């Protein structure tokens, strides 16, 4: 136990981060996941694994101190650990599908509903005897009688 806490701590003291604020570190870290192997690839920004996430966040802080940009740090992680290090798939190649498909499905859905509504409406023959406002009032009166079932 003491080893475990001390370990996290030694790293804290080894090369402490100077300039980079924890908000800047988090901004980079939230695009990455923890790869300690014990947790289920939690966000690197929030994971508390002392053997990976905590020291890696400090590593990111030191890289930021060195003047590396956000993109450069992410690239460094991808080249070291592969795409698995990213918290979300990059929108390129086959992974573009991940991002596009949900919205494509939504558009497909709305077109489907539209065509259903169109068909149904053209087939229905409106036999409006009462005017809109009257019918509306009637409707409201009827609603009042709605019983729960």
């Amino acid at each position, binding site marked *: 136990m003491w080893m475990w806490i001390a370990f996290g701590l030694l790293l*804290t003291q080894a090369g402490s981060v100077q300039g980079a604020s924890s908000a800047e570190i*988090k901004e980079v870290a939230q695009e990455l*996941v923890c790869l300690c192997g014990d947790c289920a690839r939690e966000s690197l920004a929030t994971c508390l694994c*002392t053997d990976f996430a905590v020291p890696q966040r400090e590593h990111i802080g030191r890289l930021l101190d060195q003047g590396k940009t956000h993109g450069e740090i992410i690239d460094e992680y991808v080249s070291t650990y592969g*795409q698995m290090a990213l918290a979300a*798939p990059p929108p390129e190649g*086959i992974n573009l599908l991940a991002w596009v498909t949900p919205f494509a499905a*939504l558009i497909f859905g709305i077109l489907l509903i539209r065509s259903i509504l169109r068909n149904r*409406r053209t087939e229905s023959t409106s036999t409006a005897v009462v005017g809109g406002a009257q019918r509306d009032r009637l409707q409201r009166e009827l609603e009042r009688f709605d019983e729960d*079932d």
Partner: protein
Amino acid sequence: MIDFGYFALCLALLTSGYALFSSLAGGRSGRFALVRSSENALLATCALLTLAVCVLWHALLTHNFQVRFVAENSNLAMPLFYTVTSLWGGQAGSLLFWGWILSLYIAAVVLLYRHRYRELMPYALSVMAATSFFFCILHLFSADPFVTLPFKPADGRGLNPLLQQPLMAIHPPLLYLGMVGMVVPFAFAISALASGQLDSTWLRPARRWMLIPWSFLGAGLLLGGKWAYVELGWGGYWGWDPVENSSLMPWLAGTAFLHSIMIQERKGMLKVWNMVLAILCYSLCILGTFITRSGIISSVHAFAKSNIGPFFAVFLVVILVVSFGLLYLRLPHLKPENRLESFASRETAFLLNNWILLGILFAVLWGTLFPLISEAFTGQQITVGPPFFNQVNVPIGLVLILLTGAGPLFAWRRTSEQSLKENFAVPTMVGLLSLIVPLGLGVRDLYALISLVLCASAAAAIVLEFHAGTRARMRSTSEGYATAIYRLSAKNRRRYGGYMTHFALMLLFVGFTGKAFTSETEVVLQRGETTPIGAYELTYETMAFKEDANMNSTAAALTLRRDGQRLGTLLPERRYYKAFDQGTTEVSIYSDLREDFYLILVGSAEDGSAKFQIYINPLVNFVWLGSIVLILGSLWAMWPTARDRRIARIDRSTAPSTIGSLAVGS
């Protein structure tokens, strides 16, 4: 004693198998005696599984470590409460618990509908019996909780420390009650298809039995969020983890179902669609179980990897083939009885509601399964984590709030332009006025502003709906405001319970919006040192160590002040559970309605300094408030109405001797 449990499971396999056979035969031949016999067999299954669960509980409480499940999931040092809850702390036990809940649901349906829905009951029984039979196979052949070890260990390993938390003790049972219960509406849907009773009769039992598991699932999800928030120590309550997603998906499908059946009940439309939703709900529960238990997608909810995955995969395929096969055969008989009259109608609003709910469902399902798809194509492992789900679901979620607010403002059939104007005027005004607050506070995040405006408008629309109904009631009766609003809501529980859950959703969304403004800091403090954090001042006072048989812990004591006023002492803690060689984080939270001050102890150094992580989480309490309102609203909606009670009374008075021939096939 343990042999009793195993023997009970063997008998349950026989009784559920017999129930499946006799209900099918009864459904085909129309012989009532066979159906009754099947019902009795299902009651016997329930009794047998109850016995099996009791035997396992007995083994846990008497620390019978000869039983492998007991040795792996409990130990002598654990408090009594967690010894009891460890029944669902491991694979085999939780499946037995699952099967038991299933049998309880079935028994409830059997006893409640002894004299009702007689045309639907035979095949509904078959579906439920088949599910029960499947679980008995699992208990006996794949995840036997009664396997004994060749020797009796002196002590067990104990319950996973992450689960040693009161919320975690209730969260799984609630989820199980939700996931398992969805078999009942599914059973009635399939029964309607199989028996050809394709009118709206099946919707009545299906709606009631959807509302119950749907509420449990919602409560389970939110309690799980609360657990993650206080136990996992990452400052959030929802991580889009595959297992969380697995229980969110049936809830979304259930929500869609509860809305769209209203169109069928009133207009005789969407018959096919409602069948699809009932099938989807249940299939998603099984898919979720498969994802959770097979470990095909990595997750924080790692159950022991086992051979259970293929069982669920096969079961899922059988469900899909049988249900959609039956649906296809009955398609010609599922024609809509009515046509839509107007775009501007409640019907269209419900269609759009289904569209957006299914849109979110699809996005979640897609994101959850995408790692498998991508790996199949590229051979590279990828992670689909929170950034993906948030970016995709936030815009869709905003449309959901809009529709939640706008939908109830449309009348059935058609809404005139004038009444639309009237209905939308006040909510729109309230929404726009509500902009002043976040803008004044310096909020410039577009999504957050839209979300808050929509939530305020929708909440205003709901309040108006209650108010207008109450005023109308006061005009026709001589009741006071309080009496009128109570009677109004009690007379139409379904509608007003629904509005309450809508209101809850708005509170939840306000809470979710707060997530956009979370701020986070890490500080290293020496003893006695004070640091400013936002509007707060935090002083690190002291550190204490504690050790007992179960764990040892390090706890820090800090004083929190705001504007010079002492708010209290915070005690963040890290624990180390020996039996598991695992650490847990016990966060300490100072909470008011505006925001949470969320403090984590990261570690301590030999020189006495300690490292802390702090999250300021604005509006997070709206999530918990929304959760409570959601549960109350669902309870309100499903509470038996006067009519239900009348029917039940008639049922009882006309009942012949219900315990007739106890024909149990074993």
